[in-house]
């Protein structure tokens, strides 16, 4: 399920993602707007209800006030007519009350219409039946009031009312009755009961008055002193009295019934207006409460949507971050790594969106760069190793060359066969000794020797043996010479020894030691080989050639003298020495 949702999201383009995110954000904003709109609408409705209900309540108050006014007028009528007279009371109270009632009727009709059309609750609308009752009761109030006034008029209108008529009859009867005690007594009784009735309004009192009137009639009949005319007149008056005395309680009952009617009307109507007021007030309160609830609710909705919107924005940001920015940052980092070196791994393409495509391109690029970098190193390493190799080879060559040069150098002053100083070296040494002798006055001597009969050795044993004799001879010479002496091969089987700071006699002795060593030494194959020696010393003004000549001359003499001998040839100013 999750992957089912994630996949299309991952595959969607960045534009689509942004579009979706912003569309959802827009939806949140719209939702908030809708919530506010609904709340506003509810508040508006509640306001209408409040206005309607307030108006209804106002009308009920007006209507009630008017009815109360009518009742006051009605009460005042009955309170005032005895003192101000009937006509004035009618003018002052009855007529205005009719107008007031008409207003009540108009008001209640209007109220009824208003309630029917107002946006109020069913409970209040159902009260319209009550208003119908209110209306008809108001009308009835007017009717009953009118009837009541008529009855009160019938009863109490001055001069013409039943009560006044009764008083008139009473006074006429009094005139007749007071003539005799027999008639006066029942008359007074009658009047007393009648007065009593006027106060108590209890019918038995009036009945008692009627009974007294009956007695009075009898008294008139039985009274001897009453003329027949008087008797007849009293009879007529008593008939009138009976008629009136019976009628008055009837009218009183009717009046009481009307008054009771008012009480019942009030009982029916008062709760209606009270109820209407309560309902209208309740309606207003409910509407207010509704407004409050709606306001609270809408605030809550707005806050919730705000929070949700914020959370959603964060979520969108997170999602966008996760699916776009993070990847771009990763790509950037990757690119930095690329700049600084080679990134460790490929960028995760992760999606098929633009970033994914970019990542894929980056990966291609990395592969390419990686390839390039890797090859370069290999080449450098290869070149380096090649160079190292060349350098090593060169070094070897140089070393070899040095060795060869050194060998060459050695070779140039050394006799190849014997390893002794060669002729050039000997000449250089003699030259150096000559220089020293000239500068410091030091003398030096030379020994020139030649292997005796060397030709016969070569001939007898071959050149190899001959060479070996030469080599061994050289070794003998070096071994028996002083360290400071220079032993060299002068050429062929001739050797020359330069002995610095020696005079001829020392050299002759030295030559003698060499000669004897030779004599004692057994050469390989050749056996005993002897040598002839010519020695000389450097004299003043000598040069090398001169010295060699003298040595050679000495040698020559040794040869002559039989070989294996030492002959010296001193310089010209020096006596020759024999060994």
């Amino acid at each position: 399920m999750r992957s089912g949702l994630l996949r299309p999201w991952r595959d969607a383009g960045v534009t689509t993602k942004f579009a979706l995110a912003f569309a959802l954000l827009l939806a949140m904003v719209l939702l908030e707007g809708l919530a506010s709109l609904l709340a506003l609408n509810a508040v508006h409705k509640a306001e209408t209800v409040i206005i309607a209900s307030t108006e209804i309540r106002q009308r009920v108050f007006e209507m009630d006030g008017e009815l109360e006014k009518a009742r006051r007028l009605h009460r005042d009528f009955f309170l005032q007519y005895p003192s101000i007279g009937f006509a004035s009371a009618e003018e002052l109270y009855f007529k205005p009350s009719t107008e007031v009632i008409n207003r009540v009727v108009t008001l209640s009709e209007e109220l009824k219409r208003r309630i029917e059309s107002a946006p109020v609750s069913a409970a209040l609308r159902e009260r319209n039946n009550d208003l119908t009752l209110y209306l008809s009761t108001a009308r009835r109030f007017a009717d009953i009031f009118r009837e009541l006034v008529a009855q009160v008029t019938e009863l109490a209108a001055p001069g013409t009312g039943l009560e006044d008529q009764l008083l008139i009859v009473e006074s006429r009867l009094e005139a007749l009755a007071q003539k005799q005690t027999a008639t006066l007594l029942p008359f007074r009784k009658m009047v007393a009961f009648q007065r009593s009735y006027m106060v108590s309004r209890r019918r038995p009192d009036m009945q008692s008055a009627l009974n007294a009137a009956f007695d009075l009639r009898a008294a008139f009949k039985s009274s001897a002193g009453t003329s027949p005319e008087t008797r007849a007149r009293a009879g007529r008056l008593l008939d009138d009295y009976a008629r009136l005395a019976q009628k008055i309680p009837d009218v009183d009952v009717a009046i009481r019934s009307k008054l009771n009617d008012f009480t019942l009307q009030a009982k029916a109507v008062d709760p209606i207006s009270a109820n209407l007021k309560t309902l209208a007030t309740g309606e207003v309160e409910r509407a207010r409460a509704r407004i409050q609830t709606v306001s609270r609710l809408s605030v809550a909705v707005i806050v919730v949507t705000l929070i949700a919107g914020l959370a959603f924005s964060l979520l969108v940001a997170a999602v966008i971050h996760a699916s776009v920015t993070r990847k771009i940052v990763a790509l950037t980092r990757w690119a930095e790594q690329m700049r600084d070196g080679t990134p460790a791994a490929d960028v995760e393409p992760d999606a098929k969106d633009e970033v994914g495509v970019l990542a894929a391109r980056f990966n291609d690029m990395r592969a390419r760069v990686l390839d390039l970098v890797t090859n370069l190193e290999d080449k450098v390493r290869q070149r380096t190793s090649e160079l190292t190799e060349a350098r090593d080879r060169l070094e070897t060559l140089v070393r070899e060359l040095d060795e060869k040069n050194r060998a060459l150098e050695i070779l140039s002053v050394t006799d190849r066969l014997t390893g002794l100083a060669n002729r050039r070296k000997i000449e250089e040494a003699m030259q150096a000794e000559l220089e020293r002798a000239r500068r410091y006055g030091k003398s030096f001597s030379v020994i020139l020797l030649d292997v005796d009969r060397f030709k016969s050795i070569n001939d007898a044993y071959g050149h190899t043996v001959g060479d070996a004799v030469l080599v061994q001879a050289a070794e003998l010479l070096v071994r028996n010479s002083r360290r400071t002496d220079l032993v060299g091969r002068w050429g062929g089987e001739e050797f020359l020894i330069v002995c610095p700071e020696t005079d001829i006699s020392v050299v002759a002795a030295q030559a003698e030691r060499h000669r004897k060593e030779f004599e004692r030494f057994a050469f390989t194959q050749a056996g005993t080989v002897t040598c002839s020696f010519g020695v000389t010393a450097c004299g003043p003004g000598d040069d090398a050639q001169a010295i060699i000549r003298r040595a050679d001359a000495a040698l020559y003499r040794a040869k002559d003298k039989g070989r294996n001998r030492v002959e010296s040839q001193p310089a010209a100013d020096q006596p020759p020495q024999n060994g």
Partner: protein
Amino acid sequence: MRALPRTAALLWAAAMATCLLPACSDAPEAKPCSDPLGCVSLGPGEPILLGVIESLSGQVAPIGQDQVRGLELALARRGGKLLGREVRLVIEDTGCRPEGGGNAALKLIANPKIAALFGTTCSGDAAVASEVMSKAGFAMVSGNNSAPFLTAIGGRKAPKWQAGYFRTAPNEESSGPAAARFAYSRLGVRRAAVINDGDIYTRGLTDGFAQAFQRLGGKIVLTATVNKNDADMGPVLTAVKNSKAQLMFFPLFQPEGNNVLLQARKTRGLERIVRMSDGALIEQSFIEAVGDAAVGMYFVGPTPPARTPALRRLEQEYAAKYGASPSTYYYVNAFDAANILLDALEKAATAGGDGTLRIGRQALRDALARTDKPDGLTGPLRCDEFGDCASQCFNILRLSDPAAGVDGLKKNVQFTYRPER
């Protein structure tokens, strides 16, 4: 390309539906109430409301209560339903006063959902209530009013007659004459005193008695009135005594009737006077209240319904429902009254197509006027042009043994009077 015709078809259908809808929904409304007096319109499931105006307080309360019970029994027979709807009673008390009747009726007619009125107990209340309800176009049926003023006197419209008023209690127009005939012919009385309480019911009775008695040759020596709730009957009884009446006809209610009787027994000179009252005192409570003082007293009252099996069944239902035996049989008149009203409502009602129910007010009056129910429990019921639906038949009863109670009284029939209709 395929989507276009479909969209067009949808639009067309929507347009057609829009055109048809008002036509459909208006179909039942197309026939507005054509009743000249208007209609009671009840929505689906709305109960049928019946306004009940009876005297449910004071001495008359038991009679008023029996009226309500008669109605309840009739409804119970129908499972509490009419035309498939629940019937709900809206009950108002009149206190047996005309102004109480007037104001109760005002209260009920204010509710346009009330289909009809049932009541009243006292005729005085009915006179005012019926005027109020008639003006409002209602119909009212009573099972107890018997004052002739309410319907007809001598075959002519009575002063308090109102269109839409019907009753199953017999017009007591003949009650007074029945008593007068009995008094004059059987008892040989020639001088009679009548006492009413000023109410049109009692006044109707005393007037009826007086006229018939005088017509027979008798003399009304006293016409007196007492007020409701008067306790001191001494003066009026003195007047009776003074009048030298042989018979005292006092069709009063309790407690005035009780007071007159009890005080008359103590009044010297009235020991031998014949005492006669009417149905209002044919009550167990009266007999218990006055005891032996009532021995020898006569009562004129409607002939009780015949004790048919149907009546016995109703009695059983009464006892089962209220756990007591009925004290009078007036609940049977109420039961009959309720039935003719319920039958008429069924006839007058028309069903709207949308589950509404409409009852034409004139249609209801007409249906009531056409009532012809031979099987009424109080006898055949056929309403005449004045609203009288029961036939008149009166018995004169004599209380011989207070211990036998009201049942004993009812059985002790001295005279039966059945005038021609």
